[in-house]
């Protein structure tokens, strides 16, 4: 089903303000930690201060003596048993490590106790007085320690992550030039503005309500149900607003069951909000990576072969791969490829997806490599990429045609807007007085994940239409996007559409990650809204009292909240139709299967799983595309790299809301600047603990670090991906940007830094 041609598109594709904006500005949008329940008790989580070992003893005496303390949960507490769960991607939990079930510590920051009190202040004070002694063991807290240390922990080769095609040996022999280089990225922590939080309230022993910010309500629902032996339907998750997640709120972390257990034990609702330092502990992170490349080029500067040997970090118990091979295996034409990845276990805890997992980290290495190769070949970096462009009809990874690919147009549009023609290739040749100027670019790509989805559209007697979907607005604009789709489908004013999200009792939807919500849930909302329109049209044209009685459906247009014959006034409002139907509301529920998917994805969704189709589908390989151009200005004395200008052009399919899509793309590029210049979780090698677990020392860009940022969306609908023609805007902006910054720095200074962040000490 597609939005019919000839219908007004007042919202889809336009710049539409956030429908929830006024509430957010007025503080009327209720976030998870703001639900105030009667008898609410306050909890503080206590985190392990060693990366590996076990708890020797816990002295609760002083903590329990604090007035107002209600209980302290530790592994010694009774009645807090949890059943095992599987970690993502095998299950919906963030980690299989269960909280407070044993004295064993396998990562820094692992929850070891929960203090519950009448007030937050009493809980915080008591938590400081809890005396925990540890038996510390040897540890490997970083990728480097894991790679170079004694085999305290295993290394796990990941065959499914490997990719092999052609004959690399022959390709290397055919090469006229070969090149080797290794690229590293550090640990990153998501750090959404809103902390992880949970308020848990039991109704008897079998039903619990959870208020929490989440990107995937079903993860909480099914994980808690499995841990506690409850029916999933008896776990009610409420998550109307999410103050950013970036992957960290996609799966369930140990603080959630801990608070739920405390609430059950106390027979009172319990609220737990993590501290900023705890946002660096048991809530996932982007794993450190190291990518070693060998490549061969022929006389024409085209690839003859590429090998990538990657090592990435993970935790002790789970295996989440930071898939650095995702981009190199498909982005450029190359007949011979061999990719292998090894996961290195560390006591840093379970890692998880973080905005463009694998694509951001892997894209950095590949796109700096491309810059190095272009220079070796004596070619402009953009020309070198064009020369190795993979044609639209053949994805190098799968051999399948692409659903839609306009990468060359991204290059043209971004290069034009940036003024790339004015670049002089010599190192340090572009200056503004004393200031060095460098121009660099990179390609961006992000795969399509499309999910089964469900939605309900309900016409109310008031004339409003309610859209219900058990999905999430993680700050990306889902409320506004879905409202716009429904408004256009029904020819209504967007203010007449009320979107309800963030409640697990609403029609089921999957994980809001992988840049999929707008296209996947949007398709279900489109189907439900169009279904509502068709049923009302059916009712009107079959009703002899309707001015539209007997009019052919294809001659009827939607506008002004009703149905009209062509452009005439012959017609009526939806409420008039509803009134004659003798109903005070009429609702339509729709389920959508993603393009190239099947009933299987819908069944998975209903069973609490992901329910998505992979990027390489049955008929088409499906990716988004982009090109990012960056200007840096560097003081030659201090070598302080500053990004003065970014232009990115992106082929992301149909843009649904031009304003929120632009925010996603520019936000992604800004994050890419942070990845290039600022972001790094620092670990103390001798204790395995994090040194910068606060936002003063964990650097992200501030406004003063960002010059002008321009995002161009090409707006070619991709109907091989979704009924809306949309692919997704959430993640692609960060991919490539860090490399474009690194390449610009090289152009300005001649310093090739093959790791992030590129701080001034690496350039002096």
């Amino acid at each position, binding site marked *: 089903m597609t939005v019919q041609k000839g219908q007004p598109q007042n919202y889809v594709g336009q710049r539409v303000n956030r429908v929830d904006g006024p509430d957010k500005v007025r503080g009327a949008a209720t976030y998870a930690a703001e639900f105030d329940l009667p008898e609410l008790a306050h909890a503080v989580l206590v985190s392990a201060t060693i990366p590996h070992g076990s708890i020797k003893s816990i002295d609760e005496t002083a903590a329990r003596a604090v007035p107002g303390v209600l209980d302290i949960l530790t592994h010694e507490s009774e009645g807090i048993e949890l059943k095992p769960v599987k970690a993502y991607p095998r299950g919906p939990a963030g980690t299989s490590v269960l909280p407070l079930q044993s004295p064993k510590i396998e990562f820094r920051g692992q929850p070891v106790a929960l203090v519950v009190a009448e007030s937050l202040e009493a809980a915080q004070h008591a938590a400081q007085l809890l005396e925990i002694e540890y038996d510390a063991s040897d540890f490997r807290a970083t990728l480097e320690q894991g790679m170079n240390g004694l085999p305290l922990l295993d290394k796990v080769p990941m065959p499914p992550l490997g990719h092999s095609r052609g004959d690399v040996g022959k390709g290397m022999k055919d090469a006229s030039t070969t090149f080797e280089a290794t690229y590293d990225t550090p640990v990153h922590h998501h750090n959404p503005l809103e902390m992880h939080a949970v308020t848990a309230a039991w109704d008897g022993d079998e039903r619990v309500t959870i208020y929490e910010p989440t990107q995937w309500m079903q993860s909480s629902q099914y994980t808690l149900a499995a841990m506690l032996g409850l029916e999933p339907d008896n776990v009610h998750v409420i998550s109307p607003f999410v103050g950013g997640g970036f992957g960290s709120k996609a799966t369930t972390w140990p603080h959630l069951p801990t608070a739920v257990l405390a609430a059950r034990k106390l027979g009172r609702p319990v609220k737990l909000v993590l501290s900023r330092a705890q946002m660096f502990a048991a809530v996932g992170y982007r794993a450190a990576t190291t990518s070693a490349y060998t490549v061969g080029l022929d006389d024409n500067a085209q690839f003859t072969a590429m090998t990538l040997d990657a090592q990435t970090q993970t935790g002790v118990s789970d295996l989440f791969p930071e898939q650095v091979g995702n981009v190199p295996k498909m982005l450029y034409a190359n007949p011979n490829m061999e990719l292998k990845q090894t996961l290195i276990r560390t006591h840093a805890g379970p890692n998880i997806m973080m905005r463009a997992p694998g694509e951001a980290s892997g894209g950095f290495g590949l796109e700096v490599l491309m810059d190095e190769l272009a220079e070796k070949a004596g070619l402009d970096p953009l020309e070198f990429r064009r020369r190795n462009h993979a044609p639209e009809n053949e994805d190098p990874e799968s051999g399948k045609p692409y659903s839609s690919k306009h990468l060359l147009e991204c290059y043209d549009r971004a290069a034009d807007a940036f003024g790339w023609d004015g670049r002089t290739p010599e190192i340090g040749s572009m200056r503004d007085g004393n200031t060095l100027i460098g121009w660099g670019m990179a390609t961006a790509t992000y795969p399509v994940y499309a999910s089964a989805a469900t939605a309900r559209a309900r016409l109310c007697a008031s004339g409003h239409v309610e859209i219900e979907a058990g999905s999430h607005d993680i700050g990306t604009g889902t409320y506004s996007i879905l409202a716009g789709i429904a408004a256009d489908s029904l020819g209504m004013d967007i203010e007449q559409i009320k979107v309800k999200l963030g409640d697990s009792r609403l029609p089921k939807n999957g994980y809001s990650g992988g840049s999929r919500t707008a296209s996947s849930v949007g398709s279900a909302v489109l189907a439900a809204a169009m279904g509502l329109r068709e049923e009302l049209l059916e009712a009107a044209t079959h009703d002899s009292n309707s001015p539209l009685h007997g009019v052919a459906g294809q001659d009827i247009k939607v506008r002004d909240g009703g149905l009209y014959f062509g452009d005439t006034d012959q017609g009526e409002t939806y409420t008039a139709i509803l009134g004659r139907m003798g109903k005070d509301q009429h609702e339509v529920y729709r389920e959508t299967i993603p393009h190239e998917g099947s009933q299987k994805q819908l069944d998975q969704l209903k069973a609490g799983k992901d329910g998505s189709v992979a990027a390489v589908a049955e008929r088409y390989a499906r990716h988004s595309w982009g090109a990012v151009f960056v200007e840096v200005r560097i*003081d030659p004395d201090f070598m302080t790299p500053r990004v003065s200008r970014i232009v990115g052009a992106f082929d992301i399919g149909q843009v649904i809301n031009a304003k929120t899509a632009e925010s996603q793309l520019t936000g992604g590029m800004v994050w890419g600047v942070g990845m290039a210049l600022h972001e790094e979780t620092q670990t103390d090698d001798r204790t395995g603990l994090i040194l910068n677990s606060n936002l003063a020392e964990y650097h992200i860009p501030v406004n003063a670090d960002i010059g002008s940022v321009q995002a161009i969306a090409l707006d070619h609908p991709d109907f091989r991906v979704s009924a809306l023609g949309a692919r997704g805007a959430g993640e692609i902006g960060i991919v490539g940007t860090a490399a474009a910054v690194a390449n610009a720095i090289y152009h300005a200074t001649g310093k090739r830094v093959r790791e992030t962040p590129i701080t001034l000490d690496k350039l002096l």
Partner: protein
Amino acid sequence: MRPFEYARAQSVAEAVGRPGKFLAGGTTLMDLMKLDVERPAHLTDITPLRENGELSQIVEDGGGVKIGALASMSQTAEHPLIAERYPALSQALLAGASQQIRNMASMGGNVMQRTRCPYFRDLAFKECNKRDPGSGCGAIGGHHRKMAILGGSDACIATHASDASVALVAYGAALTLRGPDGERRVKLEDFNLLPGETPHIEHDLREGELIVALTLPAPIAADGVYLKVRDRESYEFALSSCAAVLDVQEGKVNAAHVTLGGVGTRPWRSPEAEAALVGQPATRETFEAAARAALQHAHPLAQNAFKVPLTARVIVRALMQAAGQIDEAGNPTTGANA
């Protein structure tokens, strides 16, 4: 946070002599109390003395200026007496923290600001001689990219965090301290102590004493520069900074004050650099000699070794700028004859 006794002082007389800590803007103290690093049993809130004006005036004082200890950072930075006569101080204040913090933080509190050393701020690290004397120093054998290269000891290499204090020392600021036994004056450069074997003793401040004012003598020159290099453009501490005030007469340096930030265990006045400047022609060669002199006793470790060449460049640039030879971007100013 641990429980504490809270009192509000309505006058200086009421505040002086009270046990525990004084609470002004709270931007360091409350932060460290939440982290359990600071554990005062008594807290005396002196913000009424800001509101009633007793300690928040900025006034002419002889040829200099007196800044009430509770004047805020932003109020001080924007005050015409400071912006016009002590430009390096105004620049240093505006280069520090964020606007919100500058609105809260007081000048007296700024000179009491404590280090950002992670081993000091996080109780999970057991080694910190500053927090727990005798426990060792986590930074020396650990992560020390941002640590001091000047003024450290085997016990502590924590960097002094303040920008404003660097400029205050360059302008020869003194503190007026009022205690139960009366008032005394201490020059700021003497008020901050070197860590030596006692890094937990940071200031020449006696029990019950309250900083009531900062006094600045008349500046030696109208122009002054605070140059700060950091990992990002705002809301970030200095990797290296320099406050330079130069009196150049007929091409020769008549008087010079040079103080470094981000590299010392206290705001780092460099008499060596000043000696290398005075009486010499105001040229790049002289400034480079001053930079070498300032850094001759630097003791970098592996990760902060970059601060030595970086600081040399910071000093030269700050001096050239203070001499009017270049602008902020390092471009020659019109008519400059360096």
